[in-house]
């Protein structure tokens, strides 16, 4: 190897390192089951359903011995994208009707989706509420550091809808990609206030203080659930759907802060 060729190789190696540093991990497929089971039900669900569906998965496994429920929690659009690319799953639950409509249009869904819960925005502030936020109108206070989701993300679209309905202009210091990023900024005290879903605020415990506001009704988000056309386990999938939409499901969702559809 000549000297220039070697330096070229070194530069290439340096770049591989560099690119590795920039790489973002793909959404990993989470699995709730530990032991091998006779049948595995695969559920693709919006990230905000993680807590409640985790609980329902355990109930389902207890009621159906020999069955394991495997979850993939991610953003609704990512889930539909993954299914479109051929990912095998039995049930799809999204955090918005738009993503589900895409799945229906792509022929991924069997039958009609059922709406099973709703969610609305709430204000979150760091404990102690340093900027003394009392209601939605306070979010427009000059100098207040507000963090919301970006408009292309469902929680950001909802924030925009609420602001329009309330006639308030929001000037956030950051428009984040995900609810968790908004929460993190409020938890760290970097932001004076954030807009997230009621369930996210509840899941964050006492690391943030939630302030419900009536204007949130303008952007109530309804969650649809559906069986998938290519489901390897259609019978189990139908049973899981029954659990989610039944009384047991209702109790779990109430505790997590979800509203009725």
């Amino acid at each position, binding site marked *: *190897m000549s*000297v*220039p060729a070697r*330096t*070229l190789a*070194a*530069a*290439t190696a*340096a*770049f*591989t*390192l*560099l*690119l590795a*540093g*920039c790489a*973002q991990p793909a959404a990993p497929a989470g699995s709730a089951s530990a032991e091998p089971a006779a049948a595995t039900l695969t559920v693709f669900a919006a990230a905000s359903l993680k807590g409640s569906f985790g609980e329902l998965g355990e109930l389902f496994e207890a009621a159906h011995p020999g069955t394991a429920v495997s979850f993939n929690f991610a*953003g609704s*659009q*990512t889930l539909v994208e993954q299914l479109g690319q051929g990912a095998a799953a039995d049930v799809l639950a999204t955090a918005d009707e738009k993503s589900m409509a895409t799945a229906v249009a792509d022929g991924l869904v069997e039958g009609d989706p059922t709406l099973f819960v709703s969610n609305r925005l709430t204000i979150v502030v760091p404990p102690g509420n340093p900027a003394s936020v009392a209601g939605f109108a306070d979010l427009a206070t000059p100098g207040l*550091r507000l*963090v919301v989701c*970006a408009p*292309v*993300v469902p929680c950001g679209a909802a924030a925009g809808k609420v602001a329009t309905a309330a006639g308030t202009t929001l000037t*956030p*210091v*950051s*428009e*984040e*990609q995900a609810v968790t*990023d908004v929460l*993190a*900024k409020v938890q*760290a*005290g*970097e932001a004076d206030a954030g807009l997230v879903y009621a369930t996210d605020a509840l899941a964050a415990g006492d690391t943030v203080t939630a302030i419900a506001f009536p204007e949130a009704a303008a952007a109530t988000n309804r969650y649809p659930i559906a069986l998938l056309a290519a489901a390897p386990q259609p019978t189990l999938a139908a049973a899981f759907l029954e659990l989610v939409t039944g009384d047991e499901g209702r109790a779990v969702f109430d505790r997590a802060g979800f509203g009725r559809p």
Partner: protein
Amino acid sequence: MNAGDSGLPRWVLLPAGLGVSLIVLPLAAMATRLEWPRFVELVTSESSLAALRLSLLTSLLATLACLALGVPLALVLARGRFRGQRLLRALVLLPLVLPPVVGGVALLYTFGRRGLLGPVLEAAGWQVAFSTGAVVIAQTFVALPFLVVSLEGTLRTVGQRYEVVAATLGARPTVVLGRVTLPLVAPGLASAAILSFARALGEFGATLTFAGSLQGVTRTLPLEIYLQRVDDPQAAIALSLVLVAVAVAVIVATAGISERSAWG
């Protein structure tokens, strides 16, 4: 070159070829997904241009910061002889191996409102978080090791012969540094600066965690790509290819510089 006269066993070519395709194939796959007639329209949309402009500005500023801090650091590591030198080098290298998101969290606890330096900075009237300055700090944090490592290597290769001669002729340390050392390592310094510029341009994790994401203020090209991926995958692909093109240009430029210095 073929495997025969390099003395390598022929089977080596198979994994080597697979290695190349692992890198090239995904990039090619991405390029095939783009609706090319829309390319110009996609990369010149308002949000794309804002991200592009911000990325170039912050990466340039970060490169300047890397030069200002990294050149002295490389000199100290290459020419100094002191206790704890190896430890210092290891510490400087840390951002290379740390996940960027860890860097972002660490920066938040340093420059954030409730961070170590937060109260001091706030008193001085600079709120770092959510500002363009935060992006530059995050990029400098991750890019600095590239400059230091690369320049330290060049300094060691060049050696101290000419510096010693200049000193015996009565040149003072600052004159030796400015007239002998830096001109000798200029090609290496240039490629080191280009490398850190490229690293700054690709910064994602630390920026997202530490600086936030707002068009024209903190939303750099990688953040814009991540966001558009959800809403407009075509725009995300188009912008990704812009970054790939920049990366290729940087590789060619640094390789060109090393080649010239190797022969010159």
